[in-house]
């Protein structure tokens, strides 16, 4: 999406199933661009303006962009570039865009007969590309060709005509459309989607989709300067399966899935509760392995809770649990999202630390200082 000079609030309405719409508000600053990743929106469970969430089962549909109010009369200027990419089949196609706007503006009734000395309400409307007829009476500029015969109000009651004297004249309504009138959209009939059949794209050759991975404990963090010799963290190495040298040079990226939990935190702690994974990315080797992915508290936090919680009268052990959504990306760009989030857990006890990744648990004695 790319709007004009001024900033603009928009409402993106995703019609993903009959009668089902997800309305996502987006604010764009002047000249700003924004890319919407629907998969991310669905995975993060972001509620829309009606508190609804986009289900992960949504796979196709249509997008209608309106102004933030959702009212079609709220004019917006956009430059849209759309395409269809199917991460399952790794195929591309063109999007089909239609600008829905006013094509036939008019006044009703036409003709109108107004009694001498009487009021009569005129209305203006516009037929849109999609066949709807929104009312424009209140947003039109009204006028009369001969005010000695008929006058028409603009305020407070737009379109209210009054018969001043006997005779014939014309009343008009006009409203400002930034693009143009009647030809705001592509000429009728609406353009048919072209080239939408899924076709392999030469730019998205894929390295294959792993069906999963295996996890194995690698080392404790006190052997690794990259994690500040963090003795409370356990590093794990993963192997994509089935193994393939074609994965080499690809990446695995984590994102946050279900809400994390932190039973070690207590009110007043200097360490806020763990807020989820931080979005790490790892390179995949030609042996299909990636990592190490370190699971566990930073040492200072481990030492803090192991020391403070008993003095505070709070129990040990306590745990932090995170849910890690993983996305594998081929060197050439094809992606594969793991079906199930990986569970990461770290437990502090009075005698040490226990870390778990995908059910692989390691423990060691450790007293924080």
């Amino acid at each position, binding site marked *: 999406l790319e709007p004009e000079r001024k900033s603009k*609030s928009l*409402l993106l309405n995703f019609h993903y199933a009959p009668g089902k719409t997800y309305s996502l*508000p987006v*604010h764009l600053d002047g000249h700003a661009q924004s890319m919407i990743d629907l998969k991310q929106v669905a995975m993060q469970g972001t509620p829309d303006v009606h508190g609804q969430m986009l289900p992960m089962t949504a796979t196709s549909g249509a997008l209608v962009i309106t102004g933030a109010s959702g009212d079609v009369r709220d004019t917006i200027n956009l430059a849209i570039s759309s395409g269809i990419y199917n991460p399952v089949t790794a195929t591309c196609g063109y999007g089909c865009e239609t600008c829905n706007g006013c094509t036939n503006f008019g006044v009703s009734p036409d003709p109108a007969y107004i009694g001498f000395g009487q009021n009569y309400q005129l209305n203006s409307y516009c037929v849109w590309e999609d066949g709807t007829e929104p009312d424009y009476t209140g947003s039109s500029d009204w006028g009369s060709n001969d005010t000695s015969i008929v006058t028409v109000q603009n305020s407070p009651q737009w379109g209210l005509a009054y018969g001043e004297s006997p005779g014939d004249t014309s009343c008009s309504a006009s409203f400002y459309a930034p693009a143009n009138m009647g030809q705001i959209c592509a000429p009728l009939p609406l353009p048919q989607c072209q080239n939408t059949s899924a076709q392999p794209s030469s730019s998205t050759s894929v390295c294959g989709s792993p069906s999963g991975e295996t996890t194995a404990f690698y080392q404790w963090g006190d052997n690794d300067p990259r994690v500040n010799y963090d003795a409370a963290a356990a590093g794990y190495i993963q192997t994509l399966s089935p193994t393939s040298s074609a994965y080499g040079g690809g990446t695995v990226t984590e994102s946050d899935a279900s809400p994390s939990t932190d039973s070690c935190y207590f*009110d*007043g702690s200097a*360490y806020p509760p763990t807020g*989820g994974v931080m979005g790490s990315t790892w390179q995949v080797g030609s042996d299909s392995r990636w990592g190490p992915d370190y699971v566990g508290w930073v040492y200072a*936090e481990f030492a803090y809770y192991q020391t403070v919680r008993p*003095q505070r009268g709070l129990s040990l052990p306590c745990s932090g649990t995170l849910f890690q959504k993983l996305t594998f990306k081929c060197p050439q760009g094809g992606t594969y999202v793991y079906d199930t989030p990986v569970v990461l857990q770290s437990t502090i006890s009075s005698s040490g630390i226990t870390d778990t990744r995908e059910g692989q648990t390691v423990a060691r004695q450790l007293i924080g200082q």
Partner: protein
Amino acid sequence: MNIRASSRLLFATCTIILTLVAHATEASWEGSLEYVGSTATFTTQATRCLPSTIYTLSRAFHLRTGYEDAPVEFAGDMIDVTAPGRKGLRILIPRGGPLSLRFEVDAVTHKPLSFASTLNEALTAYRSFGYPGSYRLTVKDAWFYIVPSSARSRAGTDTQVTPLFDAELRPEELRHLTLDDALEKALSVVGARTGNKIVLGRRLPNQWGTVYFSPNSAASATARDVIEQIMDASGSPISWLLLYDPTFHYYVFTPYLV
């Protein structure tokens, strides 16, 4: 025999009651937001109510913020939460309590009409509740910084505070470092320069160890500016908190995704 058995039973009953009370009084870290038309109401029950407010608003509205605690030195600005009967280390937390504020939002998108005004409302509300320290807001680039301006000294007198991250760093101090090492070095240098200990409270994204930091200028810059450059260079939408722990007398720097 019978008397001893009764005593054990009574003791067990008391323990259960105390445990229940302790759980009931724990407040959630994050606050809550409610919207009615174009008005939003924010409420937090966290004792560290100001950072809780900044954290929650940052995450809700994807704001890039940096929050720095005022030092807590005056005994009246701390709460001793050590369990009754415990000897040795005293567990102290900064004095605080519930905080609420209202601010104007877009009725459709629920976004604040002005982020700066909203954050200033939070600072005003914090002051009005009489919690320790005073803070001010500064806005730089797309970042909103909440920094301390005064706090009570050990003797209880109001004293002007120089924020820790006003300390300046020289570009050569961060040369040839990856983003994670640059951040840790920045915290270490600020700590040494101000006589404080600053620990990193969260593990950094793995790829921070593969990207080298390049300062924007050959001139010295405040630690706050340097951290902003590091965060921006990471490409991740990250905000941060610097919280003071009066138990161990150190600061905890916690980055978090917004």
